[in-house]
């Protein structure tokens, strides 16, 4: 019995080897030439960094150029200001903003440099967003599995999943916090950061559920029927066929989910008044922007880097799963 099972599994593995590349097989990635390929990739990596740097420099130049040449009062059409003021208050010099990062946050003796304070806050937010993202992944893929398994669940759930994203966050945040403050199960007590993580997961699960559903549904009929001819059950089909086929859909969805989780975490921090994260110092330093305009930009840069790191971490996942992502859909 076990032997038969094992043989079956082997057969299925072989089937997957045939099936998983699937339609991608025909237009598979260009053959890798061991030597030249690696050098080329390193070169490309280097070029990417250069282009990234050029992009940042260009933005800095446009910023300074506009600040130099633009009218002090900005460009106003009718009552609408379509270009910002160029005063130091509205647009500090690039070097002022960068320089401020290396000055202490305040004059207090134990004050950290601004960049360190921002980095600490960004790490806190990243941790909360990561927790929210993980919950979003579990819930999103779980919902997708249910919806893929039972058509009626898809009809019943999908509209609600779409509807869930129309609830404004500022209405939702205080309610979550209020519920959370009542949760206390034994030694477990709901912490405020969990409310924020929950809100982050609420934004993160949506693209993941949709992407995973589409991916799980993506194998062609001939592939599912081939699995049936192997007498593969639901779980075997799922593991050997549907999951590998879902990877190209799932990776962009996970990336979107990561970006959503970061946005959700930052907004929820502001909304629920959680201390320690980047959302909090965004508000705190915005309140100090009259006397110290450059300081308010520190957390803004921090939030940008935070988003890049979050998206980059998911890209790392893509490298690990690269075997399955021959025909990734671009999101």
């Amino acid at each position, binding site marked *: 019995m076990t032997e038969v099972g094992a043989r079956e599994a082997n057969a299925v593995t072989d089937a997957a080897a045939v099936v998983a590349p699937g339609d991608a097989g025909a237009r598979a990635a260009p053959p890798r030439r061991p030597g030249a390929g690696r050098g080329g990739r390193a070169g490309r990596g280097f070029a990417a960094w250069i282009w990234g740097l050029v992009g940042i420099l260009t933005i800095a130049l446009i910023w300074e150029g506009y600040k130099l040449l633009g009218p002090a009062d900005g460009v106003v059409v009718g009552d609408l200001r379509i270009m910002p*003021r160029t*005063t*130091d*208050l*509205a647009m500090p010099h690039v070097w002022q903003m960068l320089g401020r990062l290396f000055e*202490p*946050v*305040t*004059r*207090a003796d134990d004050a950290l440099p601004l960049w360190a304070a921002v980095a600490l806050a960004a*790490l*806190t937010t*990243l*941790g*909360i967003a*990561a*927790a929210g*993202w*993980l919950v979003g992944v579990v819930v999103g893929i779980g919902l997708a599995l249910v919806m893929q398994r039972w058509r009626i669940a898809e009809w019943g759930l999908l509209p609600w999943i779409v509807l869930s994203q129309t609830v404004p966050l*500022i209405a939702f*945040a*205080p309610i979550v*916090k*209020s519920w959370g*403050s*009542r949760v206390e199960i034994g030694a477990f007590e709901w*912490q*405020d*950061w969990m409310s924020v*993580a929950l809100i982050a997961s609420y934004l993160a699960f949506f693209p993941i559920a949709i992407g995973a559903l589409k991916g799980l549904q993506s194998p062609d009929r001939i592939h599912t029927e081939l699995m049936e001819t192997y007498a593969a059950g639901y779980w075997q089909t799922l593991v050997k066929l549907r999951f590998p086929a879902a990877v190209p859909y799932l990776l962009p969805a996970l990336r979107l989910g990561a970006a959503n989780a970061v946005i959700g975490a930052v907004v929820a*921090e*502001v*909304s*629920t*008044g959680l*201390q*320690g994260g980047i959302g*909090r*110092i965004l*508000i*705190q*330093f*915005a*309140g*100090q*922007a*009259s*006397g*110290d*305009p450059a*300081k*308010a930009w520190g957390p803004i840069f921090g939030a940008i880097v935070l988003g890049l790191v979050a998206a980059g*971490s998911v890209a*790392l*996942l893509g490298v*690990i*799963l690269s*075997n399955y992502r021959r025909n990734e859909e671009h999101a």
Partner: protein
Amino acid sequence: MNHSRRRFATIGAIALSAALALTACAAPGDGDGDGGDGGDELTQVKLQLQWLPQGQFAGYFAAQELGYFEDEGLDVEIIPSGGDIVPQDALANGDVDYAIAWVPKVLGSIEQGANLTDIAQIFQRSGTLQVSFADSGIDSVADFEGKKIGSWGFGNEWEIFAAMAAEGLDSSTVQIITQDFNMNAFLQGDIDAAQAMTYNEYAQLLETANPDTGELYQPDDFNVISYQDTVGAMLQDAIWADTERLESDDEYQDTTVKFLKAVIRGWVYAAENPEKASEITIGEGSGWGPSHELWMVNETNKLIWPSPNGIGVMDEAAWDATVAGALSAVNESGASPITEEPPASAWSNEWIQQALDELEGEGLDLTGENFEPIEVELTEGGN
């Protein structure tokens, strides 16, 4: 081979990210753990503030840091706001035990059905200003007509409209501009007269370099209208409690008096040691620099002291003026904070009086008769 190695890598990556997520999550929890040590016999109390930690709340932080709450057998968690958490809503929902909020805002909530009582009127006077440049010609509320008037909205605007109503102006005679967290809109001319608190935004102006001189702005660069000097003046920071629990819950009554006693000690400490109270507040996560924080504590002290009948005791005339102002104020969307007189349960001196009586004879200056504000020098950027 290749396959299994990849699978290992996948599992490893997932484990790693999970571990990262968990350690990141554990970090904020650790801080809370210390507070719970030995807190078994202490009564758990949650206090909701109405904004970020800052000198405006120095007395509560002092009571926390110096163990005044613990001395009364309380383990108080001070919860900052700063976003969409409305203190009186959190209190009415039962999320917290006490909340700090401005009187007119809570009057609105009470009219909507919230059952709350002002148990201690900590701020005896209004700290709201309307600031304009010295050459603007805006010297009084009557001069607002036709001007761009800044307001924060969200219930912080009622003094403006009450003062205007007393001058026969309504919101259609001015242009109301919503202000954000700083004074940039005013400094750049988008607002003619901006709303400012004595303890915060006014200091922000004095911490800003005047582009014409390169020096910091000076008080004579501005015209300052203090709402305390107008009929629009309304009572601000008060401690609110749940009316129903106050009436029926013996334990809550007991806790309320203990809580107020510790709060009084905290504010007396802040009055006598503004520098130390300011340091404590910074330690509680206020992001302001030392000079701005000290200014804030000092100006807050001026709003509390002197309190002729004892700190926190309601001045009935000020309450009536606040109610009258709230009834007369109409904002730019035609709304008023309240349309009828609040119930008698909206405030009570019973608990604060009991707390003051119990503190009598301890040598504390409970009325602030010896209170002397200090001089604070502001530095650029409030750092």
